[in-house]
């Protein structure tokens, strides 16, 4: 069976085509295209501009994806699109495109939860069986484990998402949004040495990032005022790289801690990291050290699958389609709020 997936819940427009051969065989990725809307440094992406970006690229990308996959319209079994969660305007643009394809090609629609898409794609690619999932992106920070037909959220950020914290800090320092603010912070952090004191806000399996963002912004303002600022202990000059380093070390330690807490709680030894922040190599390394201490292992994917993409929507949608799930045209809405645990996971035991 073959499905096409359309994703556009944030600033990436992704189109992917996947094939599920016989049961038990790994899925085949026929094409996986993405086009990203990047705001200029110092700015975030606005819903209006992002929606416009998606509208102007979606047809082109679908055509290209079909050509690359070497499939014809008759080969496609269903059209999967992101129902939510995400930003309203971009979600709507993509849902309209999905409906159009559905009417044009006479194919049924499948609305997909974005977070479940990430989890299922991560499981498919890495082969992780029943891991604790850390889902970290610009909009979500969740520690998830599967139980009784649902992906249950054990911990999450109580205020802003970790990716949002990183993105906004990048804006403060006017770090480029290309290819991604988080990636540029990661490169800068590699040159950092001094660990500055930041709040550490873990509450059980939940955590909070807004206080950290406020603190690092104060430190950034201080550095701008006083470029000669030195670390009182080592006497080293403090740089922008040190700010990035301190921010990463602190927030990733928090994420690893809440993940470890969930692992201890549910008795799991596997971790799967998904979502845009999941391609950060420092986070992956820290998670690996933690998992090793627990006699377990960490699974992560690269930017093709970590960062929002169409293939994960096609994959999760096709899993649901095979269990008989359909989204009627009249119900093919999208929603900004759509919790991971609202989805009934019929395709797992």
């Amino acid at each position: 069976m073959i499905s096409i997936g359309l994703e556009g819940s944030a600033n990436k427009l992704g189109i992917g085509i996947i094939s599920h051969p016989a049961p038990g065989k790994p899925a085949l990725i026929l094409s996986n295209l993405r086009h990203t809307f990047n705001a200029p440094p110092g700015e975030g992406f606005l819903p209006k501009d992002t929606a416009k970006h998606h509208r102007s690229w979606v047809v082109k990308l679908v055509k290209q994806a079909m050509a690359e996959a070497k499939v014809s319209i008759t080969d496609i079994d269903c059209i999967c699109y992101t129902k939510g969660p995400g930003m309203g305007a971009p979600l709507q643009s993509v849902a309209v495109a999905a409906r159009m394809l559905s009417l044009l090609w006479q194919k049924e629609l499948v609305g997909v939860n974005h977070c479940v898409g990430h989890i299922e794609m991560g499981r498919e690619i890495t082969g992780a069986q029943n891991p604790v999932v850390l889902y970290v992106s610009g909009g979500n920070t969740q520690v998830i484990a599967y139980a009784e037909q649902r992906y249950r959220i054990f911990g999450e950020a109580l205020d802003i998402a970790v990716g949002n914290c990183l993105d906004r800090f990048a804006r403060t320092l006017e770090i480029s949004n290309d290819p991604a603010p988080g990636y540029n912070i990661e490169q800068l952090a590699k040159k950092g040495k001094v660990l500055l004191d930041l709040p550490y806000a873990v509450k059980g399996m939940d955590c909070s990032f807004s206080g950290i963002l406020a603190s690092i912004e104060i430190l950034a303002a201080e550095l701008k005022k006083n470029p000669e600022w030195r670390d009182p202990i080592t006497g080293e000059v403090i740089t922008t790289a040190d700010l990035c380093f301190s921010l990463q070390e602190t927030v990733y330690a928090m994420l690893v801690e809440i993940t470890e807490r969930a692992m201890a709680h549910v008795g799991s030894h596997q971790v799967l990291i998904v979502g845009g922040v999941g391609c950060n190599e420092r986070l992956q390394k820290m998670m690996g050290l933690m998992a090793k201490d627990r006699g377990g292992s960490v699974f992560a994917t690269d930017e093709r699958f970590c960062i929002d993409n169409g293939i994960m929507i096609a994959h999760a949608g096709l899993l649901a389609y095979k269990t008989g799930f359909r989204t009627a045209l009249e119900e093919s809405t999208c929603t900004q709020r759509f919790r991971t645990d609202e989805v009934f996971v019929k395709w797992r035991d």
Partner: protein
Amino acid sequence: MSVQAPPAAIPTPSHIEPPNPSHPASTSPLPLPPIFQHDPAPPQLITQGAEALLYRTTYLLPSIQCALKYRPSKPYRHPILGARLTKHRILSEARVLAKCRKEGVPVPAVYGLDEREGWLMIEWIAGEVLRIKLNEWLKQRKDEKVPEERENAPDGGRIHEGLHVLKGLMGRIGSAVGRMHGVGIVHGDLTTSNLMLRPRSNDTAEGGAGDGDGILDGEVILIDFGLASQSTADEDRAVDLYVLERAFGSTHPRAEGMFSELLAAYGKSFKGANIVLKKLEDVRMRGRKRSMLG
């Protein structure tokens, strides 16, 4: 006599490959601080929690059992950050436990500590973690549905009694959490893994016995105050309840409907508890909002 305290059995499931087979010892916890390496009966590793390794050993006399909580430095964490957190958490845990003891909240007693070495020695609590007990109980009733709506089912008798037992337990948890909040402590990590059921020493079987199997009998003891702090803010108390509510729902989805019983008992447990319950609604809304963006 071996001076090394080899951590006896770290649970490593056979189906998972060790991440680095060339260093087989790397999956074992670090050795304990030297002070614990001279005991003829080395501390026995009980469990590897998220932050701490829990050992069973003895205190002063071979007959007095105690729990040794050791927080080794985490390889993933920057050493400065790690030292800061360990020191803060051990000292605050001891402080909070002392305060709870003083006020009569059911928690283990503190025997000793060293915040630089990263250990805390506390009273050994007999019994089992509530998560395990509750799952055992729920498993026995796998075919019966737990939520309230079944209360009036025609075959009500046995189920009704079962529900009565579960309600009693939820009430005891609610009261214990309420008493802790009432004395100005918030736990910071309330889950059913951080609550113990201690069997009552004398067989009076009060306030818990019902349908005879007695799985859910016992006194609720709060443990693991590693993330606790002193606070009387309604916001902090509400977040504490929210953390428990969510952990409860995801760990025991079958019994999720009974959480209201816990909250009801909590509401009666101290002055101002009802304000916290109102605040909990706000915190829930905020938590839900978190699902907005992808």
